[in-house]
């Protein structure tokens, strides 16, 4: 509705005709350069890594901000693996494992859940932004959920801005 000709008269009378776009059509986003967060993802081999592969074979698009490290189980994510990238300036860490009850190793994800909850509480307590750490259960058949999670996390971190640790030399 930017063209004043459209607003003035109905097009059936107006000449020359204007190319009016209905107001309900979304306008294209502005092409400003955006902050591109870096996400390090630790994915369990059996569920989430395979789910990420399925997103690939299904050609489901998601932002390239995630960089995946394959581990055998979410239960083998050492807190150091999360702390190191955060202190080095990665903007987010994603831990992906099997849904409760589905762990290939019976209970690795239950242990990961406690460990991650403890870690996030410690980070919060230590004044480090723990919302940059995400734990998600994504199964081998949830390619779409994996893509959605990465998209959501990228948007979340983009909103949040760069990890201050990236430029904090004294850490």
């Amino acid at each position, binding site marked *: 509705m930017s063209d004043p000709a*459209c607003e003035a008269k*109905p*097009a*059936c*009378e*107006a000449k020359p005709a204007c190319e009016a776009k*209905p*107001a309900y059509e979304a306008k294209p986003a502005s092409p400003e350069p955006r902050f591109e967060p870096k996400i390090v993802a630790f994915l369990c081999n059996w569920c989430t890594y395979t789910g990420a592969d399925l997103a690939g074979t299904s050609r489901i698009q998601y932002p390239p901000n995630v960089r995946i490290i394959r581990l055998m189980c979410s239960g083998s994510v050492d807190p150091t693996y999360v702390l190191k990238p955060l202190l080095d300036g990665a903007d987010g860490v994603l831990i992906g494992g099997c849904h409760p009850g589905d762990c290939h190793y019976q209970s690795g994800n239950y242990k990961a859940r406690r460990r991650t909850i403890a870690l996030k509480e410690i980070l919060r307590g230590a004044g480090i932004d723990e919302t940059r750490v995400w734990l998600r259960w994504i199964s081998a058949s949830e390619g779409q959920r994996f893509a959605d999670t990465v998209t959501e996390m990228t948007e979340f971190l983009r909103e949040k801005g760069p990890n201050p640790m990236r430029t904090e030399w004294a850490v």
Partner: protein
Amino acid sequence: MKTQKLTEQLELFGCIQCGKCTGGCPVARKTTLNIRTLIYHMLVDPSMDVDAHQELWDCTACFTCVERCPKDVEPAELIISLRGELVEGGRVPETLGTALMGIFRQGNPSGMARQDRELWAAGMEESLERAKGLATRARDASSAQEECELLYFVGCIPSYDPRIQPVARALLRTFEGAGLHPGTLGTRESCCGSEVRRMGEAGLFGMLVEENGELLRSVGARQLVTTSPHCFNTFRKEYGLDGMEVLHYTQLVARLIDEGKLTFPEPSEARQEEHRTVTYHDPCFLGKQNQIYDEPRAILEAIPGLKLVEMDRRRERSLCCEGGGGRMWVEGTNLQERLAFQRVQEAAETGADTLAVACPFCLLTLEDAVKVQGLDEQLRVMDIMELVDACGAMPHVER
């Protein structure tokens, strides 16, 4: 003509030319309109002469083609776009141009004065003033004593057409009787634009969406209820009214009955009239396009003394009355055969004495057809709202 662009924009490349669209098209059986071949033209022949296709004005926008397409192509949208080409060039049937100008100037297709938009509420001025006040007060948060929870969008035909005005009155009366107090926009209400869009006038539609959208949002109501399935459909799908529940009145009435807020006295107590047999005609914009099949039937079945019988073509197979998509203002290329004629015959064959509808357009086209077919002794056409009002436990009964 920007055929290539349209083909891409409407994703016509998905079409496999199976013909399910034309096969199900109610007007294809009586005119030369063939949406499948139109799509085929778009795919293979970039130089289509739109002016040679006057049958484009025959489409009723019933959207049966859209609902049934196995490849998620939306054939009716092509017709709307091609009509848009004609509208852009100013090549529209005269009657249609008049309707569009009426909407542009007075906010209604009959071109009646805007200030007369409240005449429908004759005899209910008190209710109307209260309703208007409610909607206006709600806009001004500082003085709001009552919140406008529910907004009633009357619509153009119910506002101005003397045959439909009682439907709007019945609706307001029924809601008040059930303890609901809807607000209305009074003379500030303008055409929803549903048929404007379907007639191809995207520019005017955009304008209406912007103006109406702003007005509707400013009231801050949580629910919006309409008389017409056409207004309901466009508000629900084409306005982006986030946070507002858009309802057709049949949904709300069915809900009130379900919650026990609306009850009917046994027929013996209310009136001594004979038992009625009713058949129900599914409006395309309510049924096929919004899958609201059960609520109207639930209402009819709740009315004591009414017996509901079904036509063979019902629900997903209901036959279009030919009143939508701007067809109220354009005759189309085949004047002799009217789908409404067929439809009232089908209704009469059920043995019903009443043909119930839930759409102002259907009411007008089918009632007209009943008269032309000489069935008026046998069959009367009534809106569900009128039936509810007539049989309802309301303190004041009209007529």
